[in-house]
C-alpha cells in the first residue's frame, strides 16, 4: 500500500485522478482507520491523506451562504460562532459524535463521505438544504445533499473526486432548528435515531418544515411527507401527531445491536413531537 500526503488540492486531485478505486481519501481517520483494522476495508488499499490541505478547513459566511470546509472538525463546528448562531443543529450534532478525541480529529467531510446510516452530521445537512461541493481534476461541481446519500456507506461522489465542503443557504429569520439524538447513554453513542428539525415561521405559521433522520434506513434521509403535513400549521398537537405518523411511514428501520426497529419507529414520531414542542416554545408560538 501507498500513503500519499499531498499539500495542495491540485496535487491531491492529480494523485486521485485515474485510480479512484484503490486510493482511499483519509482525513481524521476516525472511520477509515477502524474499518481497516476490522477488515471492513482492505488493508492493502492505499491512502490519500488530505489533512495537510489546510484550505479545506474552516467556516465562512458571505452573500447569504455559509461555507463549511470538508476538513472542519467536529470540535470546530461545536465552537464556531457562525455555526452556533446560524446553524445550531450542526453544532449540536457535532457535539454528539464519539468522545472528545474523535471530535478533535474527525471531520464533517469524513462523516458525510463515510455515509454511515448513523452519520450525525447528515440530518442537519439534509434539513438545511445544503449543497455538496465536490471536485475532480476538471474543477468543482455541486450535488444537492439529498442526492448525495445513496445507500449504506454509498454516496454519489464520483470516483476520482474529493468533497471540498458544503454550502448552506443562510436560514431565514424566525427559524428554529435542532438536532435531537437518541443513544443509550448520555454521550459517546452511535445514534439509535437522530432527527434534525427546522421550522421557519411567518406570522405564527410554519412556512417551511424540514425533517431529516439517520439510523432508521440504509441512508440518512429527508422525511418529505412529515414536512408537508407540518407546512402551514401552527405546530398544533393534532397536526404534529399526524405528521409524526406520516413521517414514520417513510423510514425502514432494522433491528440491530443498538436498538430494535420498533423502538426506532417509535422514536422518530416522538422526536418530531419533541421538536415541535421545543420549537413552539422557542419561537413563542404559544
Amino acid at each position, binding site marked *: 500500500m501507498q500513503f500519499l500526503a499531498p499539500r495542495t488540492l491540485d496535487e491531491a486531485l492529480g494523485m486521485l485522478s485515474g485510480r479512484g478505486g484503490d486510493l482511499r481519501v483519509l482525513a481524521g481517520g476516525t472511520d477509515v482507520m477502524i474499518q481497516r483494522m476490522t477488515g471492513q476495508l482492505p488493508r492493502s488499499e492505499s491512502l490519500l491523506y488530505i489533512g495537510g490541505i489546510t484550505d479545506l478547513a474552516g467556516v465562512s459566511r458571505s452573500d447569504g451562504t455559509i461555507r463549511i470546509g470538508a476538513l472542519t472538525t467536529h470540535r470546530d463546528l461545536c465552537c464556531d460562532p457562525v455555526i452556533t448562531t446560524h446553524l445550531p443543529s450542526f453544532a449540536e450534532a457535532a457535539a454528539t459524535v464519539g468522545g472528545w478525541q474523535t471530535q478533535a480529529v474527525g471531520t464533517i467531510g469524513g462523516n458525510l463521505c463515510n455515509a454511515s446510516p448513523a452519520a450525525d452530521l447528515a440530518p442537519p445537512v439534509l434539513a438545511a438544504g445544503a449543497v455538496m461541493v465536490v471536485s475532480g481534476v476538471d474543477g468543482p461541481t455541486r450535488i444537492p445533499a439529498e442526492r448525495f446519500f445513496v445507500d449504506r456507506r454509498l454516496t454519489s461522489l464520483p470516483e476520482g473526486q474529493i468533497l471540498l465542503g458544503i454550502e448552506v443557504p443562510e436560514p431565514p429569520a424566525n427559524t428554529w432548528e435542532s438536532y435531537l439524538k*437518541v443513544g*443509550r*447513554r*448520555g*454521550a*459517546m453513542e452511535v445514534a439509535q435515531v437522530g432527527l434534525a428539525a427546522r421550522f421557519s415561521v411567518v406570522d405564527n405559521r410554519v412556512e417551511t418544515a424540514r425533517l431529516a433522520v439517520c439510523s432508521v434506513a440504509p441512508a440518512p434521509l429527508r422525511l418529505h411527507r412529515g414536512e408537508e403535513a407540518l407546512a402551514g400549521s401552527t405546530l398544533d398537537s393534532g397536526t404534529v401527531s399526524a405528521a409524526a405518523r406520516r413521517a414514520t411511514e417513510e423510514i425502514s428501520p432494522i433491528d440491530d445491536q443498538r436498538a430494535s426497529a420498533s423502538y426506532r419507529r417509535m422514536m422518530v414520531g*416522538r*422526536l418530531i413531537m419533541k421538536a415541535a414542542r421545543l420549537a413552539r416554545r422557542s419561537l413563542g408560538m404559544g
Partner: protein
Amino acid sequence: MTAVGLGTPRSDADAKVRGLARYGVDYREAGMLHARLLRSPVAAGRITRLDVTKARSYPGVHAVVTADESPKHRNGLILFDTPFFAADTVLYEGEPIAMVVADTPNQARRAVEAIALEIEDWEPVSDVTEALAPGARLLHPDLDSYEILPGAATWPKHGNCGGVLTSDPGGVDEAFQTADVIVEDTLEVPRQYQAYLEPKSATASYDGWRWTIHVSHQFPFQVRSRVAQAMGVTDSRIRVVGHHMGGGFGARLDLGLEQFAAIGASVTGRTVQLVNDRDEDLISTMSRENATIRVRSGVTTDGRIVAREFECLMDGGAYAGDTVYLTSIPMFMVASVYRVGPTRVTAKSVYTNTAPSGAFRGVSGTYICFALERHTDRLAQAIGMDRREFRMRNLFESGDAMLNGQTLDDAYILREAFERVEEVAPWQGVGKGPLKGVGLAAVIWLTNPLAGSATLSIQQDGSLGVSTAATENGSGAVTMGVRQIAAAQFGLDAEQVFVTAPDTDTQGYDAGSQGSRTTHVVGMAVEAAAEQLKPRIFNIASGLLGALPDDLELSGGSVCVRDDPSRSVPLATVARTAFGLGGPLSATGTYNVPLPKWDPDSAEGLLFPVFPVPTYHVHLAEVEVDPDDGSVRVNRYVVAQEVGRMINPDGVYGQIQGGVAQGMGYALWEGLETRDGLYTRRTLESYGLPLAVDVPDVEIIILEHPCEAGPFGAKGAAEPPIVPVAAVIANAVSDATGANITTLPIDPEEVLEALDERREA
C-alpha cells in the same frame, strides 16, 4: 497516630497516573516470541480438517501448536471438562483450536490466517431452555467419566447440567397453603463483561524443567496449579510472577491464556507472549453468566412472607468453570435479609454452546438480588402494603439463620442500615413526581475466606517490607489496606511500607483478590507476623535503651519508652543490631478465616457452604424517566454499607462509587446477548459501559461494627456495592412507570409502553 483510618494515597497511584507502571501486557524479554490463537469461528461443530502445514512454513513462524502437540487430558476448576485445544469438536465461538508462535505479532496473525480449518457446523445449543429440553444434544456425552478436583465432594450432575443444587427442607407446600396471596415471577438477565482496561495476556519461558509465567492476574497461585494441571506436571514446576493489573473484577481468577503461553515456551524453548486483542477478549472471556430465575412466594394480607420456591438456571457456557460452585449462592440470599418461611431452592449450572461464563464481582448475587427484590416489591403491591413497611415487617433479626443453617448474630445491622438510609433520604420524600420513582433493596454479602500469608521484614533503614502473593487488582486492598495495616502495627506511616509484587516461588500461598478478602485475610496474616516480630524488636531495643521490653512501644519509626518518649531508638538501629542478635527481623504470618457452622444436610450439591464474615447493605435510588425516549436518569443513589472498620476511607468510598457505576451499567446499558450462540454486541463501542456523565455521585453512609477477628476490625468491603444496584434501579423504574421490569438491561421501549398505558388508564 495510626495509619489506619486515614485516606493515605495508594502506593501505585503516581506510577499509574504517569504511565510508568508496567502491566502484564508491557512485560518484555529479549528474544521474546509472539503467539496468536486460532479460535473457533462457529458456536458448535465438528472439525473436519485442520492443516497447519502452510502456516508452519510462513516467515518468522517458530511453531504451530494444536491438540496433537498438547496434553490429551481435560482440565478444569473443579470439574475437568475442558480440553487444552479443541480436538474433534468445537463447543463455543472463540474456543482455541491452535496457536502460532512467531517472531512478531503480525507474522503470527498472518500464519493463523493461513491455517486450513474446516468445520461441519452444528445447530448450537444456544440457551438453557434448549439445553434442558428432552432430546437436546449433549455438549459433554462423557460427563460422568470426567475427573473432578482431588478432595472435592461429589455433587449431582447429568445431561447438560454440570452441577445441580437442591434444597428442600420440607413443609414448603404446606406453608404455601397458609398464604392469602401467591405471587410468581420469572426474570431473565444477560451476561456482563468485566471490561477491564488491560486485555488478558501471559508471557512464559521454559528452562527444560520449570516454566516461569509473567501475568497480571488476581490469583497467581491458581495460575500455578491450573497450568500444572493443564500441562500434567506438579505445581512446583511452575513459577508465576505478577505485575500491575489493569482490572480484573473476577475475570482473572481462573486460567486465561497462561497455559498456551507455557506450551508455546516449552515447544520453542523461547520466551513466548500471548495477548488478547480487545475483540477476542470480549467474546472469549468468562463473563458473568446469564440466567433465568423463577421465584414464587406466599404472603399473608397482614404482610408476612410464609413460603418460597426459587429456581435458577445459570448458563455456564461450554465448560462449567466456577458456575458449579455458584449454584450454592442462592442458599445465602433466597431466604436471607427477609424472613420468608419454608423455602425450596433448585439451581443448575447448564451447558450451552457459548463461551464459558465465570466469576464477576458479586458472583450471581447481582441477578439473584434483582429477582428477589423485584419480587419483594411485587409481594408488597399484591397485598397493597407500602414497600418499605413490608420489608421492615419481614426483616431478619440477629439469630436468624440462612438456608445453609448459618446463624447471623449481627443481623440487627440491617435494620440500622435501613434507618440510616431513611435519615438521608426519607422514603416518603423521595421519588415523588410524575416521572420519578424510588427503589430500595438490601443484601447480606460475604467476605471471601481462603488462606493467605505475608512475610514482614524490618529493613536496615527502618522501613518495612511486606512480601505477599496477594494481588492489587486496582481496589487498593494491597496498596492502601495491607500497607496501612502493616504500618499501624509498627507505628510507621504507610509511606514507610512497601509491598512486593507476587511471585509464587518466594512467597507463601495466597488465594488471590476475590470476594473482598485481601484487606481482611492478608491484613490478619500481617498481624500474625507482627505478633512474632514485635517481641524480638522490643527485646533488642530493651538492651539498647536499658528499659524493660514491656515498657516499650513503637511510634514514629522508633522504639520508645512508653512513659518517657525522650528515650527512644530508631527502628533502623534495632534492625541492624538484630543481625548480630538472632538474625534479621523477619517473620511470616498466615491466616485462614474460621468458618461459621452450617448444616451439611441443608442442600445437596452445596459446594460453597458458608458466607463467612457477613456484611450488611441497604441501597436506595431515585430515578427519573424521560417521557420522549424512555431512558432512565438516576438522580440520587444512597448506599448504607457495613464494613467492620474502614482502613482507608478513600478506598472504601472509591469501591462503593465504582461498584454502583458497574451495577448501573448492568441495570441500564450493558449485556452480552447471544443469537445462535454468537454474541450480538461484539465490541466495546456497542457494549455500553457506564459513562461518567450518567453516574451520579453516590451518597455513602458507612456503618462501622468492628469485627473481632479482623485487622483493626475490618471486614470485606469492595465486592458487595455492585450487588443490589440493578434491583434498586429496576424497582425505582417500576415505581416511576408501572412497568414490571423482569429483564436487564432495562429496555426504554418497555418504559415508554408502560408510560403510555398509565396515561391511557
